[in-house]
C-alpha cells in the first residue's frame, strides 16, 4: 500500500506522523510505504507571524527543519508536486519524478493574494508573510501619530487574526504612550465586527472601551497608495497614514493549474474529507473548499480523522470516523490576555472570558506546537 502525502504544513505533517505510528509494523515489514512531498525543507509556525509584527518574536524562532519533525518511517522529499494524474494514481514532481500511489492526501495549503486587490501590494502592510511581518514592525516603530486602518480581504486564513491585530495595536501604542495620537479604524466585510456572532458580541464593547473605530460591510475594492485611501466595493472610503491588510487568500497554484478546484480550493466531502469523485484522494486543511476556518487547528483535527481512517482501511478494510467540523481557536486579546473558543458543525463557538492564564497558555502553546505537529499532542 503506497500512501502519498503532498504538502508538509500542519495538516500534512500531523497526518504523516500519526500514520507512521499507527502503521509502524506495516512500514517496517514494507507492506506500507509512506511518502511526503513538500516545497520546503523548513516548517514555519505561521501563527507566530503576528508576534513578529509586534517585535515579540524574531523570524528564526518560527522555523524547524521539516525532516526533524518527521517519524523515521516517512520517506520525505523536498520536491513539490507539479502534475496530478488522479485517474492514473500518479503525481509528477518538479524534478520530473513520478510517484504512484494507492492513497493520496493533498494538503498544499493556501497563499496570500494581495495582487487581487489593486494597490494592496504597494499600499498595505501585512503580517501574513515573514518579510511582511518584519516590515510591519519597522513601520509600527516609526509611526508617531495618524490613522492606522485595518482592512480585511476574503477569504483569509485564521479568521480571528483581524481582531487579535486590533487588540495588539491598542496595547502596543498604549505601552508606547502615544495611543491618544493614533486613531485605529477597523473595516470588516460583513455587517458585524466578526463573522462569529459570539465574538462580535463580545468584541464590540471591547472596541468601544478601547476607542477603536469600526466600519462594517466594507469589502476592499482598491487601495490608492499615492493618496493613502482605501475604497470599498460598497462605495465608501477611508484615508489612512498606515494601512494594515489581511490579504485575500487563494489555494495553491498547482491546484488551479491541474484544474482540481476553483480558486485553488478542492471540492471535499465535509465528513469523509475525500475529494469529490475520488474515494482514494483525501484533502486536508486550507486546501479544501469546506466552509470551515482556514486554520492550523482545523487542519490538525482533520489530519487526525484522516490518519485514523487510512490506518483502519489498511487494517480492517473500512474507515471508522467522520470529521465533525471541529475547530479550536486561541484568541489573543492584547499583549497580556487571551480567550478561546471551540466549535464544530453542530455546536456554535462558546466564547470564554478573557484571562491572563489563557494568554500564558497560548505562549506555552507557541512552543508546544512542535510537539503537536509531531503528532504527540
Amino acid at each position, binding site marked *: 500500500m503506497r500512501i502519498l502525502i503532498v504538502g508538509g504544513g500542519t495538516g500534512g505533517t500531523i497526518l504523516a506522523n500519526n500514520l507512521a505510528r499507527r502503521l509502524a509494523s506495516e512500514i517496517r515489514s514494507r507492506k506500507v510505504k509512506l511518502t511526503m512531498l513538500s516545497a520546503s525543507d523548513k516548517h514555519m509556525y505561521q501563527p507566530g507571524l503576528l508576534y513578529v509584527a509586534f517585535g515579540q518574536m524574531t523570524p528564526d524562532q518560527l522555523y524547524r527543519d521539516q525532516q526533524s519533525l518527521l517519524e523515521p518511517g516517512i520517506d520525505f522529499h523536498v520536491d513539490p508536486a507539479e502534475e496530478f494524474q488522479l485517474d492514473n494514481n500518479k503525481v509528477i514532481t518538479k524534478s520530473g519524478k513520478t510517484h504512484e500511489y494507492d492513497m493520496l492526501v493533498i494538503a498544499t495549503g493556501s497563499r496570500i493574494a494581495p495582487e487581487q486587490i489593486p494597490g494592496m501590494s504597494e499600499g498595505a502592510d501585512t503580517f501574513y508573510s515573514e518579510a511582511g511581518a518584519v516590515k510591519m514592525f519597522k513601520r509600527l516603530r516609526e509611526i508617531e501619530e495618524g490613522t492606522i486602518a485595518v482592512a480585511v480581504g476574503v477569504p483569509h486564513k485564521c479568521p480571528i487574526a483581524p481582531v487579535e491585530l486590533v487588540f495588539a495595536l491598542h496595547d502596543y501604542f498604549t505601552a508606547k504612550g502615544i495611543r491618544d495620537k493614533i486613531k485605529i479604524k477597523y473595516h470588516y466585510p460583513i455587517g458585524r465586527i466578526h463573522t462569529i456572532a459570539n465574538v462580535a458580541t463580545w468584541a464590540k464593547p471591547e472596541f468601544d472601551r478601547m476607542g477603536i473605530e469600526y466600519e462594517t460591510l466594507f469589502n476592499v475594492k482598491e487601495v490608492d497608495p499615492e493618496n493613502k485611501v482605501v475604497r470599498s466595493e460598497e462605495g465608501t472610503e477611508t484615508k489612512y497614514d498606515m494601512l494594515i491588510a489581511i490579504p485575500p487568500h487563494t489555494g495553491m497554484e498547482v491546484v488551479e493549474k491541474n484544474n482540481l478546484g476553483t480558486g485553488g480550493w478542492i471540492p471535499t466531502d465535509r465528513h469523509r474529507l475525500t475529494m469529490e469523485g475520488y474515494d482514494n484522494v483525501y484533502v486536508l486543511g486550507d486546501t479544501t473548499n469546506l466552509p470551515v476556518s482556514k486554520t492550523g487547528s482545523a487542519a490538525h483535527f482533520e489530519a487526525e480523522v484522516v490518519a485514523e481512517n487510512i490506518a483502519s482501511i489498511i487494517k480492517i478494510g473500512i474507515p471508522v470516523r467522520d470529521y465533525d467540523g471541529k475547530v479550536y481557536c486561541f484568541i489573543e486579546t492584547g499583549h497580556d490576555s487571551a480567550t478561546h473558543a471551540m466549535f464544530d458543525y453542530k455546536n456554535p*463557538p462558546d466564547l470564554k472570558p478573557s484571562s491572563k492564564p489563557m494568554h500564558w497558555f497560548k505562549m506555552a502553546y507557541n512552543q508546544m506546537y512542535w510537539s503537536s505537529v509531531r503528532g504527540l499532542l
Partner: protein
Amino acid sequence: MSDTNKVIDARDTFCPGPLMELITHMKQAEVGETLELLSTDEGSGNDVPEWVNKVGHELVSSEKIDGVWHIFIRKMK
C-alpha cells in the same frame, strides 16, 4: 431554480460563516451568474440581503424551507 450556476452549501457552519462563503464565491463568479446559498444560520435571512443590496448585486429570492435558507443572488458587477 433552473438557471442557478452554483450552490454554496454553508449549512451547519459558524466560521467563516455563510455570508463570508457567499462573498468568496461571488468573487469567483462571472457577472450575470446566479448563486444559491444554503444556510442554517438564522441571521442569514437578514444579513445576506443587507450585503447584497449594499454592494449592488440582485437578490433574486429568499426562502426558508425546513430550517434551511435558500437564497438566490445574481452577480451584477
